[in-house]
């Protein structure tokens, strides 16, 4: 179980779904907060869902307000990076670049991609946490560096 967890974690990292930040979060986890990372992830999904709704709305407007979109995405990017969602963060950066270039099509395309990555990560994290809960807190915290 522990080994499975470790290997799952490694795979997520290797595939670029998660980055070092996620590892930092896991290191913060301790006995006083045994499910810290999971709580953070839950909080992230809550907030980011709301943020994405705002972005959806902004994308529906015409003409597009690139400044506003850029700001919204900035917030979203901040959240994503804080949890270590690497691919999602990269898409966010790309999105912002299109915003600054005033490229509406580029924005929408990137956003679609972003949503996909977001959903994928969410699923993977859910599986991960489930395993982590089964494995027990010790395992999660003591991840080999």
């Amino acid at each position, binding site marked *: 179980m522990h080994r499975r967890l470790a290997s799952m974690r490694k795979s997520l990292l290797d595939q670029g779904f998660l980055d070092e*930040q996620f590892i*930092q*979060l896991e*290191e*913060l986890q301790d006995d006083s*907060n045994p499910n*810290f990372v999971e*709580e*953070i992830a839950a*909080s*992230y999904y809550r*907030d980011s869902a709301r943020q994405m709704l705002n972005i959806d709305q902004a994308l529906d407007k015409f003409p597009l307000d690139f400044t506003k979109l850029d*700001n919204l995405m*900035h*917030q979203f*990017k*901040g*959240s994503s*990076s*804080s*949890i*270590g969602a690497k691919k999602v963060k990269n898409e966010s950066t790309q999105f912002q670049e299109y915003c600054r270039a005033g490229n509406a099509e580029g924005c929408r395309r990137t956003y679609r991609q972003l949503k996909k990555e977001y959903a994928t990560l969410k699923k993977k994290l859910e599986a991960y946490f489930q395993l982590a809960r089964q494995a027990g807190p010790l395992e999660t915290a003591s991840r080999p560096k």
Partner: protein
Amino acid sequence: MNLGVKSGSMPSSSSHGSTQQFPAGLRVLVVDDDPTCLMILEKMLRTCHYEATKCNRAEIALSLLRENRNGFDIVLSDVHMPDMDGFKLLEYIGLEMDLPVIMMSADDSKNVVMKGVTHGACDYLIKPVRLEALKNIWQHVVRKRKHVWKDIEQSGSVEDGKLQQQLPDDADYLSSANEGSWRNSKRKKDEEEDAEDRDDDTSSLKKPRVVWSVELHQQFVAAANQLGIDKAVPKKILELMNVPGLTRENVASHLQKYRLYLRRLSGQHQNALNGSFMGNPEATYGSISSFNDLELQAYAASGQLPAQNLAALQAAAFGRSSTKSVVSPLDQRNLFSFETPKLRFGEGQQQHMSNSKQVNFLHGIPTNMEPKQLANFHQAANSFGINMQVGSHGSQGNSLMMQMAQPQSRSQIQNDINGSYVSRLPSSIGQPVVSNGTSRVLTRPVYNQVSQTSPVAGFSAQHTTDLSRNSFPLRGNSGISSLASKVIPREETSMQIKGPQGGSNYDVFTAQQQQQQHKSQDWNLQNSGLAFDTSQQANMRGNLDVSQSTLVQQTFLSRDAIEQSRNSSVLPSVLLQQGFSSSGHSSSSSFGKGIFSGVEEIGHRNVPNIGQQLNAYFTDTSPRVKAEMLEGSFYNNILPDQYDQEDLMSALLKHQQEGIVTVENDFDFDGYPLDNLPV
């Protein structure tokens, strides 16, 4: 409100830290609208053994900081927040509390980072923030403290005494561990002692930050005004101020904040001074005193003080309305228009974070009291501490005033503002304190009357008295500025004689003073002269300038001073006004130093000439100033008795004794009324 979780916000809340080794227990306030980030940061900070307080809104963070002046050591803030721009928050914190602030953002573009730097952020972290980055944030706390300490130490304990109020803040900052006790120990007049204590406690990490006491700030403003706000460069300002122990960096960072402050004020022009003027009751602003002048005027304007008084003050003080100083937006508002001053001041204040409150504070009082009273009031304000706090609490303004009034009334009664002065200033000088610079004029008259400078002294540095003093007769440029100007650029020293300018003041004073004690007056004048001079010179060339700048300075200073000086009661500031009311604040100590220098100079220079003018001038301020300025020489006579802040004053006096002996001789300060002050 303690949003934060823990926050001890209490000044000595660091109780928790006390058991731990610095930097453990560092009290961090983290502000971020993103709840996920907030959670992570809090957890990381806890892991570093810091005391973290979360806050998701800038407004809440500000009120937390204001309510717990010494409650936090450092602030971490996100740049992009919905309710307030992170940089704006940074500005506010820097001005009001002078805490190190670290900005964070996922945005790493150079211009944003540059913005952070220019707004005075200690550091800029790119999100996602790593634990390692947070581990080292304590260095910023130490660094800031070090600057403060340096100044304090150099200024030599005078400030310490005054700082008392301020120190606690520092102490807190330094190490949550030592906090509480730290500050107390600081209070003792000796910086060295405190420093030692601190060192012991915090392993010398806790160096106090430079506290920009009202006086110091006034000095700064005077210098800046003299140079021309646009052309004011830290190096020159530093030279002008001539405050031992003050570094160019201190001045630079303060200048930056000041500029922001001015910008803010000009934007706010007329915000309702009245209510909010009073600013925070938290009186920790020792600087209130310094602020007083400016604020007073402003406040007076705001209606708190009888318009007439204010007008009188202003007229007297400013005569020139030359607010040329940087303060101009402020000055203009405050200083001259004596109606407006209040507004201005109020506005500035209010906006500024309810600094205006402080001003109001004075206003209220002056009306009742003569300028002297005002001065006293200021001093009293010091005692109130809270009242004076110029800044940030708008609501407090009223209360502050009341408070101030109270002390003042006391002092007044004691001081007995002999009215003679009052006659001088058209309106109750009481305002002088408030008036930006003009207060000097006012204060003076009062002062004279008051029994020997005591008004000022009596109040213990409450600047208020000083302010009032300023308003008076000083008219001569110097008059006004000197009193109010806390620190009037030292270069002025010669201010004393500003004679022609001050002369007018002097007249007023003389008349009044004669009764009181010439000596003291002379000295006062000198002191005030110094104070004023510096300010005057810098600012007012005409007198008004000074006042204005003073006022502005005060306002500004008050805010800062208040923040810093929280510890020290207004006293120091009052002194500044007069001559250097040694604001109790810690900043005052540094400031006091400045003052001293100023005083000293004055003493030297003009003593003979100024004597007259100064007398008049000083009389009011002298008590105060003396304390501060005199490096102790004459102050001893004056202050201790009257001021509430005896500690501060005595501290000052002691210092002064050494320093300004020269002045004494000339002025014969011994007789300085301070002792006599009715207090």
